[in-house]
């Protein structure tokens, strides 16, 4: 009973910190946190494919981007479109895109999968540039109304207020992350990891690979799309730069690796680390991209298990050492 209580304490602390944060940290850091949260969700959605299913989605920005664009477009053209559906629209769009691509994507893995997703990512980037009437081309879609969070007749919270938006975004991201965490703990989630280790065996055990992979792809697409939708609401401007370009494909990948692709929380840690890093580095140079690139190479070369992975390794060594000490009565 006491153990269970202990487990809950960090979460309660976190909850309290999150609530008082904007009042303590100020507007700038509040927005900073929102950006971290958006990318945490984006990176976790990527990791469903990378760490869990073992495939590199190199065009993942396309799910984020189509979600963001769809939310922006819907808010621009449909008057009075409410807040939550606007977020769901982004998620559904990401999921639909994944669904459309899945017949092709489930047939490949490894380099071919990376290539296909890269190609489709580029395709959508180019399409967004060319179909100006819909996407605004390079200028993008912007200045759309941000609907309030409202329950008719009861309450209406203005989402243009940055503190209110912070709470909204954090709650939505937290719920999404919980759903995804739970997803990885279900029997279906265990299948995904099986596919990573030995896809062939999974099929010989009686599971239809293509359906299983497709569902995981769609889940990943939906939540990347939701991240994009929140982004659209946050920025009030969606254009190709920083949304559909290759840079935005690289960021979640970098975050997942820094934090550790072998853990659910790794990408979240990675998003935090990267945002803090960017914040620190910006004081000295604008070339944050170069720093990111170097960090990525360093991580891949020397610490591919990421920070969470390193932590686990340290924990294991520490425990085996104390176990040895206890059993042999000496220090090893």
């Amino acid at each position: 009973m006491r153990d269970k209580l202990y487990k809950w304490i960090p979460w309660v602390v976190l909850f309290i910190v999150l609530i008082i944060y904007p009042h303590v940290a100020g507007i700038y850091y509040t927005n900073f946190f929102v950006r971290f949260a958006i990318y945490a969700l984006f990176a976790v959605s990527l990791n469903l494919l990378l760490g869990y299913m073992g495939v590199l989605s190199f065009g993942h920005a396309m799910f984020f981007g189509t979600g963001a664009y769809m939310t922006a477009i819907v808010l621009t053209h449909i008057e009075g479109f409410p807040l939550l559906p606007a977020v769901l629209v982004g998620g559904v769009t990401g999921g639909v895109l994944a669904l459309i691509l899945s017949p092709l994507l489930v047939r490949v893995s490894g380099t071919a999968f990376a290539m296909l997703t890269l190609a489709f990512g580029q395709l959508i980037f180019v399409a967004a540039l060319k179909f100006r009437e819909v996407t605004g081309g390079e200028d993008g879609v912007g200045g759309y109304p941000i609907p309030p969070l409202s329950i008719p007749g009861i309450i209406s919270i203005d989402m243009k207020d940055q503190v209110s938006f912070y709470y909204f975004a954090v709650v939505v991201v937290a719920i999404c992350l919980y759903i995804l965490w739970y997803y990885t703990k279900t029997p279906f989630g265990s299948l995904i990891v099986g596919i990573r280790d030995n896809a062939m065996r999974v099929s010989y055990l009686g599971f239809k690979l293509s359906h299983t992979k497709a569902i995981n792809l769609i889940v990943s697409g939906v939540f990347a799309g939701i991240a994009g939708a929140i982004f659209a609401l946050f920025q009030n401007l969606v254009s190709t730069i920083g949304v559909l370009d290759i840079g935005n494909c690289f960021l979640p990948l970098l975050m997942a690796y820094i934090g550790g692709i072998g853990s659910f929380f790794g990408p979240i840690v990675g998003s935090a680390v990267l945002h803090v890093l960017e914040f620190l580095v910006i004081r000295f140079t604008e070339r944050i991209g170069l720093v990111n690139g170097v960090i990525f190479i360093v991580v891949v070369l020397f610490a591919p298990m990421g920070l969470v992975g390193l932590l686990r390794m340290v924990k294991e060594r520490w425990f085996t050492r104390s176990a040895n000490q206890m059993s042999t009565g000496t220090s090893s």
Partner: protein
Amino acid sequence: MNILETKGLYHDFSGLEVLFNINFQVEEGERHAVIGPNGAGKTTLFNVITGTYTPRRGKVFFKNKEITGAKPHRLARIGMGRSFQITSTFSRLTTFQNLRMGILSKRGIRFNLFRKLDKMKTITNETDEVLKRINLDGERDIPASLLSYGKHRSLEVSLAMSTDPELVMLDEPTAGMSKDETHTAVELIRRLTEGKTMVIIEHDMDVIFSLADRITVLHLGEILAVGTPNEIRENQAVKDAYLGEMEEE
């Protein structure tokens, strides 16, 4: 009843002919060995039966229903299990998690997105029971890749049976094992295949003669002989083609 039967099976790989007019029969409940020199087509036969390949010509029947060209996952669902010559487990998952995958399939839990797997007591208990039965409960939480060779092979074979198939196809289960490991493995296989039908590819003659009810001898893609171990031992053609090699070992 013949639980498994092939009729006129022919297969080639881009012109390289591997199986000719194979009429292979396995009676329900028997332990049937497939032997033959390397290159005889044994694994190809397995691959055709278990859905890895669709044969160029001929048909395959399982429980009197045609299954030619059916995909592996479908065959697993209708009662066929297969182990691999080269160990093919979930290397980063624990022994427990490996077997649990098969148990989930056996119980038809394929798209459950709603319950926490670790909390599903029946699944956990059933998997633990299986672990005990195959003597791997001591290695429950060890990643498969860290198992000793013999235990890893045991896991490989157990994985094939984790879906509780009626027909178990084992491809050289004792490959690379020491004498002791082989002995343990044979006992395990005997115990686990009680009441099931088993087809086994093997090179180790001791294993075959201690396990098999009947033997099919394959040579250069054709069935050379079918019979009880004693009949095969006496068969001159078989001796010429194959057992002569064996005696040299």
